[in-house]
């Protein structure tokens, strides 16, 4: 159920955009370095990024269990925190999907509609809105296999789902292919995460399976410093 966001109106220069940084709760608490890398990456592009300090959680844990009553306060707070930003960017597919696809039980006020249409996953933002052509500062001389999350693929349309026929596309891959030295390795057996893990570990020492594309993305395009910082984490 990929949904489309609204592209930004007219000639707005990305640098003039007021960007809100949406930090999913688990990244804040467990993977803060992904958050830092996301922020630093956006800053590299000269964007003006703000992190609203009152944010907590998008409501996904409750909402995914169908508990709309207890999800509502978190959802309202998200809308309140981000309603004044032109773009809201978060480095996690399922959390962005939660806002975009599942804020449907709130009253669809202008503010709610605005945040639903303008919340982007980092890869989407770089690929679709910023239309990044290169990462001139980045170099990552390693083989890389991509694992996009289900929410990113089928919820946000970041890559062509394997079930759907037609020309393949993969926005994460398109971006990573612009990083100097990085070699994309096909992942031919989606059945076997173990096979992937083995391939990862044998070819690139610091890698571990199960990384969301964005987390990987931020690490690799930020360059070796961030990379090593990121690897300390796992």
């Amino acid at each position, binding site marked *: *159920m990929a949904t489309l966001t609204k592209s930004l109106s007219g000639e707005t220069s990305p640098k003039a955009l007021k960007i809100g940084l949406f*930090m999913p*709760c688990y*990244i*804040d*608490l*467990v*993977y*803060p*370095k992904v*958050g*830092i890398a996301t*922020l630093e990456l956006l800053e590299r592009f000269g964007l003006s990024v*703000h*992190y609203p*300090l*009152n*944010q*907590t*959680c998008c*409501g996904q*844990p*409750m909402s*995914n*269990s*169908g*508990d*709309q*009553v*207890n*999800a*509502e*306060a*978190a959802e*309202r*707070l998200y809308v309140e925190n981000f309603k004044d930003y032109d773009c809201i960017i978060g480095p996690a597919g399922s959390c962005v999907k939660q806002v975009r696809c*599942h804020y449907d*039980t709130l009253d669809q006020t202008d503010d709610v509609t605005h945040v639903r249409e303008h919340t982007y996953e980092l890869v989407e933002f770089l690929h679709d809105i910023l239309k990044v052509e290169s990462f001139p500062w980045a170099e990552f001389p390693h083989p890389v296999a991509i694992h996009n999350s*289900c*929410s990113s693929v*089928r*919820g946000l349309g970041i890559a062509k*789902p*394997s*079930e*759907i*026929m*037609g020309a393949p596309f993969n926005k994460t891959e398109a971006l990573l292919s612009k990083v100097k030295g990085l070699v994309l390795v096909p992942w031919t057996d989606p*059945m076997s995460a173990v096979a992937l893990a083995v391939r990862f570990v044998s070819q690139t020492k610091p890698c571990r399976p199960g990384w969301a594309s964005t987390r990987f993305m931020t690490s690799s395009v930020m360059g070796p410093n961030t990379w090593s910082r990121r690897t300390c*984490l796992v």
Partner: protein
Amino acid sequence: MSTQPVDPAANASLFILQDNIHEPMHDRFLWTIRQRRDHQAMAMPEWEELRELASKIKEHTLTHLDQYLEEFESNATKRGAQVYWARDAAEHNEIVHSILEAHGVQELIKSKSMLQEECGMTPYLEKRGITVVESDLGETIQQLDGQPPSHITMPAVHKTRQDVARLFARSIGTDPKNDDPHYLTEAMRNNARPRFLAAGAGMTGGNFAIAETGTFVVCTNEGNADIGAAVPPLHIASIGIEKMIPRVEDMGVFHRLLTRSAVGESSTQYTSHFSGPRKGGELHIVLVDNGRSRRLGLAEFWHSLKCIRCGACMNTCPVYRRSGGLAYGATYPGPIGVILDPTFDEFKYSELPYHSSLCGSCSEVCPVKIDISDQILKWRRVMASKGYLPLAKRLSFAVAGHVFGHPEESHAAEKAAGPVLGHTPHFLLYNRSLNPWGRDRELPEVAKQTFREWYLANRAQDNAAQ
């Protein structure tokens, strides 16, 4: 209403933990089928167009169902069939029984039908002294083992060859050490054939019912429906009212999608169109509602009626492949079952919508584009609103719902979470009854400094300027 909801997670762990053979075999086999389906679909440039067309035809038919049903009845009657209307399972079973009784039939041969399964027809008839012989091999295996089908098109897919060899040795006296599929199939064929020939009536389901001609279409790979329809003088077909399609030419769309989606083959081995009784025979068609018209009235769930029962959603589902179909404890297992079963009994099947990772593969693989994954989430909303969430979830969500709505409390809790998680004894965090999800998992470690803390220390001046 039943007193205890089905517990699919507990049932699934029985399947997974029984040995290290069944679950991996099941998982790999069904994934192979999914891959075969991909190859078939890939070979057809118009695949996505066909799915869209199939979805539109079904939506159109379902929104004009009254007209098409009457058109079907009138055309089938013109061709000499007798058409009956059954409001529910009980009426269906009574109608079938009365037809058999009127013809003095003692033994019935039937081909696998999910609708007859749904109506509990076999036990109903057997209680009334009628012997019901199943003609589908997989279904026969399940019947011999006293189990319902675990998959809607491959009823015994959770069993290994060795399981079948042991079962046949027990039930029809084959060599328990011989698990050669040809040997076992031949043995069952020889065992069943005389009973097929002796049956007084044959029963089938119907994959599609064509309003324009009053014809119904039955697709099998074993030709078993055909022997039931062709040998005994009496043919009874049970057909769900959602099986209608308007025209013969629409079959072109569904026929191309059905088998490719189901098993990754271009067509079923046998696709039979039944238009009226054969010479000297009788044809009785029972059109069954059994909750379908009520489902048609459910704004969020009526699309589930588009289902053509191919089972592609099961083959692709990571949860189904690892759980086995019996874990769902319902007529319809897998993703489609998760959204159909609660329409029969919300409480009994209240746990089924949680037996999903919401990965969305089912919706994308579905040949008639049912939004299965979205409907699973919507069923969770129904279950939560009725208070069917487990106590632990209800309590923790009430707390989380409040805390996440109040940033100051949330950030205080976050500060506390690190040390608390760090010091909570392992046996408490991973207690089986307190946290069943903790069983085969470890919590990730909480970072020493949260992103928010880092931001306050390194970028706070930016925020002040906001």
